[in-house]
């Protein structure tokens, strides 16, 4: 890849790199599964593992896919296409430094990696924000995407503060509040908000569904935003140590849960009424993702309302909640959409190359269906298995389910290469 590469190549590169990080994530989970038995809070090895997935896979793929999806969803061009090339390399270096810093608990590397990550992601964020300025007619999707990138910026600031706090040795009781804000802002504010906005735009295009009603959109935006804002305020006033702050956190969590449930309900309602009834691989992944998201909401509320003692005795519920919400939802939705996006990108790449006889056959013909469905079955079986094994903190089961997930993610990557070659 070089700075003169087309946006298609750059997007493809991000997606393939992200898929390699996905394999690494499960490999790390397999090799270092004993870490789940140690104290979970601010466990730097767990932080390292989590960021291999969230930054290595999720954000990497989102950055690459936004090249293609934002113009599709919003009808605008990316403002500074070439910046993606520099961001890509800076981001990978930053990520490796950060992950190594967390794994070996080296505050210098954590701070350096954190600052480099901040710099590279902020360039990406500014690029997207500048692109959004070109939107002529703002609708709910545009607002949803705007909110998502504002939350990415806030989450990034909190994350960098935490990375620096290791260096300056100021990891104190406030770190718990910062961590909660970071998690909720990034996952609910950025990931769920972005996926909701993109889904509401892409579902009508891919499956000929109706567009969501304005009332649903407004309800979703209000509930999600109110929930996240209350949780952030709670953490600013050091909410876990006073009753008022704790109340805000509970209220925020409940509003957030309600927003997510409304989104899931709307997803089912749109998909059930779709014109294109055929089930393709993406449909299965999207349904799985939404089911896992609902499971995560259930577990999150269980954590809220279970007695503290019960949770202290079984911290596995945090891991199970995090895994099913992170990989179960976000991972499945991304993998599902990649089954649509990747063939499109390959077609475009081929078109750029030959400019004649450009596009032969259907996207579906490019995909090795049996491999895709084997992969789907593996993921569908392994995600609940891994969540359950994390819940009961059974190392053997964690290893077995991680091994299944390694196999599934390797098949996924192979499938991408096969698609690229056969195009």
């Amino acid at each position, binding site marked *: 890849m070089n700075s003169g590469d087309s946006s298609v190549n750059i997007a493809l590169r991000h997606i393939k790199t992200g898929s390699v990080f996905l394999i690494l994530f499960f490999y790390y989970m397999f090799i270092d599964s004993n870490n789940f038995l140690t104290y979970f809070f601010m466990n730097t090895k767990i932080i390292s593992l989590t960021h291999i997935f969230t930054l290595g896979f999720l954000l990497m793929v989102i950055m690459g896919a936004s090249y293609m999806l934002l113009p*599709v969803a919003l*009808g605008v061009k990316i403002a500074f296409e070439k910046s993606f090339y520099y961001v890509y390399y800076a981001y990978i270096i930053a990520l490796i430094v950060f992950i190594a810093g967390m794994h070996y608990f080296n505050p210098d590397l954590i701070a350096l990696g954190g600052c480099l990550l901040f710099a590279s992601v902020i360039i990406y964020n500014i690029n997207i924000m500048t692109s959004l300025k070109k939107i002529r007619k703002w609708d709910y999707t545009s607002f949803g995407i705007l909110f998502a990138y504002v939350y990415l910026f806030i989450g990034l600031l909190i994350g960098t503060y935490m990375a620096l706090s290791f260096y300056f040795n100021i990891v104190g009781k406030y770190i718990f509040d910062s961590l909660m804000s970071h998690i909720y802002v990034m996952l609910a504010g950025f990931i769920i908000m972005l996926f909701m906005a993109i889904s509401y735009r892409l579902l009508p*295009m891919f499956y*000929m569904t109706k567009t969501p009603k304005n009332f649903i959109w407004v309800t979703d935006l209000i509930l999600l935003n109110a929930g996240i804002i209350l949780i952030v305020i709670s953490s600013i006033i050091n909410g876990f140590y006073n009753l008022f702050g704790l109340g805000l956190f509970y209220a925020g969590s409940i509003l957030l849960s309600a927003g997510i449930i409304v989104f899931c309900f709307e997803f089912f309602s749109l998909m059930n009424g779709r014109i294109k*009834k055929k089930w393709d691989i993406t449909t299965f992944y999207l349904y799985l993702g939404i089911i896992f998201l609902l499971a995560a909401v259930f577990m999150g509320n269980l954590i809220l309302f279970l007695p503290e003692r019960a949770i202290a005795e079984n911290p596995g519920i945090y891991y199970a909640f995090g895994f099913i919400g992170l990989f179960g939802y976000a991972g499945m939705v991304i993998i599902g959409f990649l089954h649509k996006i990747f063939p499109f990108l390959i077609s475009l790449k081929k078109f750029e190359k030959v400019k*004649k006889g*450009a596009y032969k056959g259907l996207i579906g013909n490019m995909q090795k269906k049996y491999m895709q469905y084997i992969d789907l079955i593996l993921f569908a079986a392994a995600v609940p298995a891994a969540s359950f094994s994390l819940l009961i903190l059974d190392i053997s089961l964690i290893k077995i389910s991680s091994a299944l997930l390694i196999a599934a993610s390797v098949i996924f990557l192979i499938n991408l290469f096969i698609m690229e070659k056969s195009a």
Partner: protein
Amino acid sequence: MMITKNDILENLKQIIDPELEVNIVDLGLIYNIKIDEQNKKAAVFMTLTSKGCPLSNVIKFEVEESLKKLEGIENAEVNIVWEPEWNYSMIKPEILKKLRKH
């Protein structure tokens, strides 16, 4: 032999929308066709299912190539238009029925 709009439409049926897996004619994407026999030119006025369609250049190119392959056409022009905006009611009813059945 004179080329007709129907000949062009039949030819364009070979171009399939990759996502919906239906040809662009039955999808209702072709709005108008103008044939200039004297200059051996055909102009197609068509739309796409969405403004940000990532394959817009590919589909436009394929339509141009498809027109040029027709006997009696030397110049092809493809105009992408957005008015009226495409919607599902523009799909041929029997195709829509088929999509719903799957």
